[in-house]
């Protein structure tokens, strides 16, 4: 992926033409290997995995690249709206304006030490239009073809909900896994409710690899999100609580799975997550 040296407008993409039907003589040409053959357990899914070669995007407040819990950041852009209100991506020189993105990146690094972490900053360039910047940032991330996008944030704007829904579906078919924080307040927010994303809430245990499948969605998985020791600005660490910190646990685990099984679609990945959940077939 080429690092962006200057502001680059975020363009509408040209979709590759999908197959709308399956003629009889084409059937022989679509034989697929079964990526889920054999017993699906934790050893099969993540045993020995490090997240190597998996591109994980942190869509957040930026990432402090020098933080010892984060290590190297493979690329960082900030999304802004130009004078005409058009979204652009510029190289991010500012790092993290809050600490939150660094925290998420640190959690991902903890679980998937060899994953390639990219930062797409969608916060900090003014409050007005922040929802549009969020949508543009996700658009950018999907366009780049990241394997996993961590979204520990949401918007309550219904107008943006529709755009996010389309982007989430687009990501799903392009094999970009969106992992989104569930809202723990009684409000309508997006994109975590969409079935094409993986939504995450918190449990109170300490093990970052312990996670549960929720029998009562829309929250689909619960991961470590309470009293978590996380990276913060200025090279520090803090203790933090919130679904924000449970989400990168699942992003990290998704990176582990994809580093062993890169052919998995988001649908298959979610099935594997379910299969190895601590309350289903997991050993933790």
């Amino acid at each position, binding site marked *: 992926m080429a690092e962006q040296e200057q502001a680059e407008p975020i363009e509408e993409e040209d979709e590759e033409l999908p197959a709308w039907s399956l003629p009889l003589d084409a059937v022989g040409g679509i034989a697929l290997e079964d990526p889920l053959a054999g017993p699906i357990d934790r050893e099969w899914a993540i045993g020995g995995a490090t997240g190597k070669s998996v591109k994980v995007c942190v869509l957040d*407040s930026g990432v402090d690249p020098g933080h010892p819990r984060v290590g190297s950041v493979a690329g960082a852009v900030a999304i802004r709206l130009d004078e005409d209100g058009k979204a652009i991506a510029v190289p991010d020189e500012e790092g993290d*304006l*809050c*600490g*939150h993105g660094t925290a998420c990146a640190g959690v991902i690094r903890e679980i998937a030490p060899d994953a390639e972490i990219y930062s797409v900053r969608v*916060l*900090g*360039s*003014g*409050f*007005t239009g*922040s929802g549009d910047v969020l949508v543009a940032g996700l658009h950018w991330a999907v366009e780049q073809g990241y394997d996993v996008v961590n979204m*520990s*944030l*949401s*918007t*309550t*704007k*219904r107008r943006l909900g529709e755009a996010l829904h389309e982007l989430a579906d687009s990501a799903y078919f392009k094999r970009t896994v969106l992992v989104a*924080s569930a*809202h*723990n*307040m*009684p*409000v*309508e*927010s997006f994109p975590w409710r969409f079935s094409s994303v993986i939504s995450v809430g*918190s449990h*109170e245990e300490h093990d970052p690899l312990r996670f549960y499948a929720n029998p009562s969605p829309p929250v689909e998985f619960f991961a470590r999100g*309470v*009293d978590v020791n996380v990276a*913060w*600005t*200025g*090279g*520090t*660490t*803090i*203790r*933090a*609580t*919130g*679904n*924000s910190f449970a989400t990168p646990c699942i992003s990290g685990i998704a990176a582990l799975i994809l580093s062993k099984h890169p052919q998995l679609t988001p649908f298959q990945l979610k099935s594997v997550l379910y299969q190895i959940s601590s309350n289903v077939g997991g050993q933790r």
Partner: protein
Amino acid sequence: MNDRTDELRSAVAAGVLAADEQFGRLLRSIVDVARAIFGAKASSIMLLDPDTEELVFAAVSGEGERELVGRRFPASTGVAGWVLSSRTPLVIEDVQSDPRHARDFAEDTGYVPKGLMAVPLLDEENALGVLQVLDRPQRSRFSLQEMELLGLFAGQAAIALGLLRSAQRARAALGGDGDVAAVAGVASALDALEGSRRAAGLSLLRDLEQVLRQN
């Protein structure tokens, strides 16, 4: 609903809404109770000023209550800015250094919190501000029940703030020389009438309404 209808509805509602001062007391009560519930050193409500893109301290209980009300800082940075922009609650503790979240507190009060709970104040799809609870006792690890309680409490505060915003909009509309102020002036004059003059006034207004609707 368009803005004009919203203004009219707000203007009508103003008749039953209490004064700004009472809402100020309500906000103060909310931060007092939030502070008491969590046994915290301080609690505050910050409101978004959309014109300047700043968060403004609207009510403070405990540390900083004398200095902070009215203070402003950018709405898109720091922990409060993140909570507002991302619509997501956040709890951080054991802050050791680089307390960016506490800069505004520290500059004005010399008080640097070691931890804070921050939750967005959401009125339907609009983010109105942030409720913060600073330095709860470190007696135990934070629990999901506390997080839920914080969220519920913020929901209540957001309802109060939504009412306050309606009242402020209504007051602004009634105080100007625009359409709404003209209608309110007529309504006020009618309300002051009694007996046959009131009936005649009402009849006149109904006729006027019919004329206005004809085109």
